[in-house]
């Protein structure tokens, strides 16, 4: 009889589904099946079981080959790299637990690091917009229970957050939305005809990069003012109708993704999307929710918020926290040659940063802490594999709506492997010794 573990939390995307069931082998060592998860989530669990998984740290040699080293050696290299650097960059933090993020912050504080998370290349613009105009929002359950108008703007949950629509936004039968998807009108705003767009009641297929204009036009329409015949390629009749439908609902929600956070206009797009939401609250109830990507990118912004007061782009080099995105953001620091060492944990800049930045990482003393071999580990000097958070060790994570959920340990990590938290604790201890602060 396979053993079934219930209420398992998926450590993949910001949807943070917590209803997974995992079937284990009789001895409890092997994951056989993952129920309720989407393909991406299930694959993450099954991946942890890969037979060819790297289980020991590896150092890159002069000739480019890799040599296995002990964790103690890895700790020593990492601690020295951070202490010796004038301005180390400690990047990532989005795929790990809040406890690990907290320990990492302490290290960053002692060594005077620049610390940044993946928001720097995804929802950082959202965070800046929130600093400008605030954010009227709600938990995903409020949306499941109340929302009768749902807008997906510049995002494609059918692929990026596969269970979002079934758990929270379109299909669930909530307290006041007893007819499920029939209780809701679904809008998709996207230049592409995505799989999400294909499901929508209304697809506003705007011209690429014209989100700001369209959002602005909706504000104009909400105020009953005159519009030109077309805005962003959308006929004005459709804009008036959209504004009217959003306003006449009982509860409207706008979900938005990287289609607006990093297209032309960036944080200004989000400013005005929030302004639309704010305006709608004068007529009905409305909320706006960013579709956060990594399962705990939200958490790293929270941890830094309570420890330092800023959600990303932290510069701790002066002994107190400074914040100036565009200056203290990872890519700006790398491109300007301002950092002299790179530490990566819980993300993969090698796959997502511009190639110029990746080249810089390759030139610098660098360490990548990650369960997988990734493009980042490939360009780093040291790769430290660790246990999978949410599979082999528990720990708190924050869903896209900031709701914290404790992820669960399902199986043991391969023998002798450290978790993020354990590795960071060792580095912290060593850093304190090197700094004479033990």
């Amino acid at each position, binding site marked *: 009889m396979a053993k079934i573990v*219930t*209420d398992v*939390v998926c450590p993949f995307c910001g949807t943070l589904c*917590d*209803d997974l069931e995992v079937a284990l082998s009789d001895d409890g060592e092997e994951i056989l099946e993952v129920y309720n998860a989407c393909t991406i989530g299930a694959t993450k669990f099954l991946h942890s079981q890969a037979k060819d998984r790297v289980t020991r740290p590896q150092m890159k040699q002069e000739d480019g080959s890799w040599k296995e080293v002990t964790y103690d050696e890895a700790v020593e290299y990492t601690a020295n790299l951070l202490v010796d650097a004038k301005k180390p960059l400690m990047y990532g933090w989005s795929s790990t637990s*809040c*406890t690990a993020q*907290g320990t990492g912050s*302490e290290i960053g*504080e002692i060594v005077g690091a620049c610390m940044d998370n993946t928001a720097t290349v995804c929802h950082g613009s959202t*965070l800046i917009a*929130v*600093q*400008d*105009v*605030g*954010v*009227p*929002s*709600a*938990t*995903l*359950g*409020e949306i*499941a*229970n*109340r929302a009768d108008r749902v807008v997906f703007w510049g995002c494609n949950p059918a692929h990026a957050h596969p269970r979002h629509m079934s*758990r*929270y936004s379109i299909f669930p039968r*909530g*307290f*006041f939305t007893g007819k499920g998807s029939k209780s809701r009108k679904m809008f998709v705003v996207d230049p592409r005809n995505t799989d999400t767009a294909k499901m929508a009641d209304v697809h506003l297929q705007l011209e690429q990069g014209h989100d700001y204009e369209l959002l602005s036009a909706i504000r104009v329409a909400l105020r009953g003012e005159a519009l030109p015949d077309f805005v962003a390629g959308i006929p004005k009749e459709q804009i008036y109708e959209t504004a009217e439908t959003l306003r006449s609902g*009982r*509860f409207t929600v706008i979900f938005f993704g990287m289609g607006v956070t990093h297209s032309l206009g960036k944080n200004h797009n989000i400013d005005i999307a929030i302004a639309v939401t704010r305006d709608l*609250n004068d007529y009905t*109830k409305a*909320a706006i929710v960013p579709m956060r990507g990594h399962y705990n990118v939200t958490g790293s*912004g*929270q*941890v830094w*918020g*309570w*420890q*330092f*007061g*800023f959600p990303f782009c932290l510069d701790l080099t*002066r*002994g*107190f*926290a*400074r*914040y100036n995105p565009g200056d203290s953001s990872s890519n700006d620091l790398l491109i300007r040659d301002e950092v002299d060492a790179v530490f990566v944990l819980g993300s993969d800049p090698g796959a997502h940063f511009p190639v110029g930045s990746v080249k810089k990482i390759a030139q610098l003393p660098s360490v990548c802490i990650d369960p997988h071999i990734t493009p980042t580990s490939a360009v780093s000097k040291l790769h430290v594999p660790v246990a999978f958070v949410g599979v082999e060790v528990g720990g*708190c994570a*924050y869903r896209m*709506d*900031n*709701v*914290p*959920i*404790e992820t669960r340990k399902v199986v043991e990590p391969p023998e002798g492997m450290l978790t993020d938290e354990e590795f960071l604790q060792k580095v912290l201890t060593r850093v304190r010794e090197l700094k004479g602060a033990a």
Partner: protein
Amino acid sequence: MTEYLIKNGFVYDPIQGINGDKVDVAIKDGKMVDAGDVTKPTIIDATGMTVMAAGVDVHAHVAGPKVNVGRNFRPEDKLFNAAAGSGLKRMEGGFSVPTVLRTAYLYARMGFGFSMEAAMPPLYARHTHEEIRDTPIIDQGALPVFGNNWFVLEYLKENEIENTAAYIAWLLNQTKGFGVKCVNPGGTESWGWGMNCETVDDVVPYFDVTPRQIVSGLIAANEYLGLPHCMHVHGNSLGEPGNYEITLDTLKIAEDYSPQNDFGREVVLHNTHLQFHCYGGESYASKSFESKSKEVVEYINSVDNISYDLGVVTLDETTTMTADGPFEHHLSHMNNLKWANTDVELETGSGIVPFIYNPKTFIAGAQWAVGLECGLFIKDPMRAYITTDAPNAGPLCRYPRVYKWLMSAKARDDMLDNTLKYGDKIRERCYIGEIDREISLYELAMMTRAGPAKTLGLGHMFGSLKAGLEGDVAVYPYNPETDTDDPEKIEYAFGNAAYLIKGGRMIVKEGEIVDMGNKRTFWVDAKVNENPMVERDIAEKFRRYYTVTQNNYTVEGHHFVPNPYVIEVDATR
């Protein structure tokens, strides 16, 4: 453990009736003891200084989701308000919404040992506890909010007190919460549809229950359980001109109840930030607005089962934050600054808006006056506690400034004459001009330690220097014999404790923070009879309407509450 003997200080301990006498204060094994019971103590010379039990804060917003939104969405709050770490101290930042480290250091510098986080959304309990865990030194607890919770609304519509109590007991256990908080009863649920409840008799949409029924039922359930703290209410129509009648309506609900508990608590209702609830008139204009603090406090003086805290406006730029979602929306329309809001499924909501209490406006000055009046009209200072509803009416760091205003008529006159633009108008529309009372150090000790400790049901641990209580003592560089000439000395002294001993450990020594202490999280574990109906209702709501599973809702001890102090209550019948 180290023994301490604090000698030669002027001691204020209302619980023992010590009023400025020079008596020795002793600590051994983390507890207060009689001076004769220490053998080889470290001597602290408090000559010329004031000695009190450590402060106890009954109501502040210092940890949790809305506080963190306040931090993250206001980078400007850190400008000129950051400090590097040194020694044991880590870096700190923030003025109205300080980082958790700064919060701890601030409390320590002000001689406080305990703080109650005044509003915890249950679904976000983990977040609140993560922040509390990372706040060193001070002991803390958190009050989950119940006033708009669907279970509570459904049970109280039918006046099912036992079921409400069973649900409260379950939720306290799940969230590691301390007591029952109620914010804008019914109004925040109405806000789920963009509406509000403005009086105690407005009906909550769909749920068909009134704020009166919610407040009454929560008091009844609180006393049914015999919780250490009483029901803690922030009533309807906060901040609205003319709201004092709604406040009186809310307070009068308590007439039907008497305290039932084993903790020495004598009140059944605590009305928080009373200042925001004592307004007369129809608008904020000086020709209409008037203070009704006297009317409200006179009512409280006439009964014995209500306590309150002041919520004094400190005339700063600050960050307002409350589970009163509709109020914050309203506020954002008044000042057109940024507005954050989060509605929480089945439970509550919240809003956050920066605010500038500008001393050049009539209304901010009038609010300042009303807050102080709330402190000055009280007959029994054991039932009126000094707060700023931090950070709503003012930042935490302003407590000492508020003491100054309460303790010195000269300081108040100076504000009215020289700082406030509409001082004369404020004298006309408020009572401040006719009050010459000055709060004494003895009364200050009641309003900042003895009183709040008692109302929180923690009088057996905090608020006095009596033998057996926790070894929490603050020593302030204030000489009550020679320092009375200059009110500024009050503000300085109470913001710069010379010593703080907490649980028998020296935290502040000669003004410097030297130890991070042994912080504890207080929560209440209430035992009730098995209640299959409530259990079934809980399971049903989780299955159908929550977005986390019931098993993933529980705040497990381990890393969220690593050093708990659990108060057990037996309400099985």
